[in-house]
């Protein structure tokens, strides 16, 4: 709990330990190249970078803020202005998205602190072995049939509401994984948690959403 916050409030510009799984791929190196090009004064590189990641960071804020769009706008703008300001200090040692979502997470925690919201502090539900088993069993029920053909607007709203009911740490892992495109190891690095903890959080979030999807059938 405290470790989560401590990791999140650490300097975002300092890349944390990198695991072999974080070896940058083609797109990751492309992101890093774009950021370095922008640091050299290429504004078009930033435009490409922004177009590529703006949706993910915006939704990251929007989901954590439970749909409060105005605050999400503000935090999103703050985040990218911070990226602009930190361009000269950026180095390609870390994956760009890891760095980007670290900044985003820190900004979110700052916002929660200033608002008196608990944030990630009180969300880690102790996942017992039985709970994990239940989740795993639930996932195993899938036999390859599609869970949905197309979601209506109402179904989409219910699915989003279902994620709101998920504790913040699980929701955070899910958003970083799905919207941010980060791997388990990257999320673990970013949140300074063990990979198993992240896997457990993800499983919880997936189980909750899957249950909602099944109800929508």
């Amino acid at each position, binding site marked *: 709990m405290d470790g989560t916050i401590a990791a999140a409030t650490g300097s975002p510009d300092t890349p944390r330990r990198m695991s072999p799984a974080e070896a940058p791929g083609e797109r990751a190196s492309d992101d890093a190249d774009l950021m370095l090009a*922008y640091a050299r*004064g*290429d*504004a078009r590189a*930033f*435009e490409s970078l*922004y177009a590529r990641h*703006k*949706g993910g960071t*915006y*939704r990251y804020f*929007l*989901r954590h803020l439970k749909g409060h769009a105005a605050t*999400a*706008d503000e935090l*999103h*703008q703050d985040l*990218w*202005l911070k990226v*602009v*300001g930190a*361009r000269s200090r950026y180095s390609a040692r870390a994956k760009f998205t890891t760095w980007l979502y670290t900044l985003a997470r820190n900004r979110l925690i700052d916002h929660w602190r200033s608002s008196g919201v608990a944030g990630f502090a009180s969300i880690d539900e102790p996942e017992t072995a039985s709970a994990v088993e239940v989740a*795993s069993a639930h*996932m*195993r*029920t*899938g*036999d*390859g049939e*599609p*869970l*949905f053909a*197309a*979601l209506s607007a109402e*179904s*989409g*709203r219910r*699915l*989003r509401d279902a*994620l709101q009911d998920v504790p913040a740490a699980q929701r955070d892992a899910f958003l970083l994984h*799905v*919207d941010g495109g980060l791997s388990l190891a990257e999320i673990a690095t970013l949140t300074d948690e063990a990979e198993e903890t992240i896997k457990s959080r993800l*499983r919880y979030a*997936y189980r909750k*959403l*899957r249950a909602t*999807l099944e109800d929508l059938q």
Partner: protein
Amino acid sequence: MTTRTPPQAPDDEVRRAWREVSNEQPPERVDAAILAAARRAADPGSSSVVRMDDHLRTRRWFQRWQPALAAAGVCGLAFVLLQSLPRESGIGTMPTRPSPPEQSKTTEAAATESRGPVDAQVPRSAEPQAAGNTMMETTRPNAPASPGRSMEAAVPPPAASGDLSRMNPAETPAPVAKAASRAEDAEASARTIAPAARGRAEADRSALGAMNESPGSAAADSVEVQIARIADLCDRGDRDGAAAELRRLRKQSEHADELLPERLRAWARTVE
């Protein structure tokens, strides 16, 4: 033996469903602000963008406050006009001498009545000029009379009429004669000016008539005073002084000897 489905398959379904419903994007204004800031930061020479923003901000500020500025300007202009207008009219109505006697009031009233239709034709700007003339003539008593002169210029100061008893009898008719000549001038001018202005000349004449009565009574008073002075000189034995006074009285009145007391008439017959 059961084959366990890898958990990734249902996770993929959830991810797909989630990505379908979660596709919000930041507002365009936020995009624009971020990209503008990024461009400014990338190009130090793009200060023109900042200048343009400042210009737009200034223009928006001006557009926002333009109605208020216009209203304030109109109010200020109206205030200045209101402050200046009463001062001008105050000059026109400012009395050039102490409060006039009752006669001049009636004369003024008559002049106002006769001026009534004239004001409809004569431009208003002529009035302050006439008022200016009045003030100038007060300081220059010998200035030639003009048709537009107000009655106040033609009427001598009340203080002067009050001091007539102390004046030399030979001098008393002078203001009257001057006023008469002014009235004649006014009448002559009235013939040449528009008929509308003729009312003013008539007003001048009526005022002059009132004037002629006033110096006459003052002259009668001075005769009595002179007779009393002659009697006093005779009583004190100053026959020469009394004779000089009598001669002066004779110049003023043909029947001076008859006006003397009975006891002085015998002495008066000895004076040539």
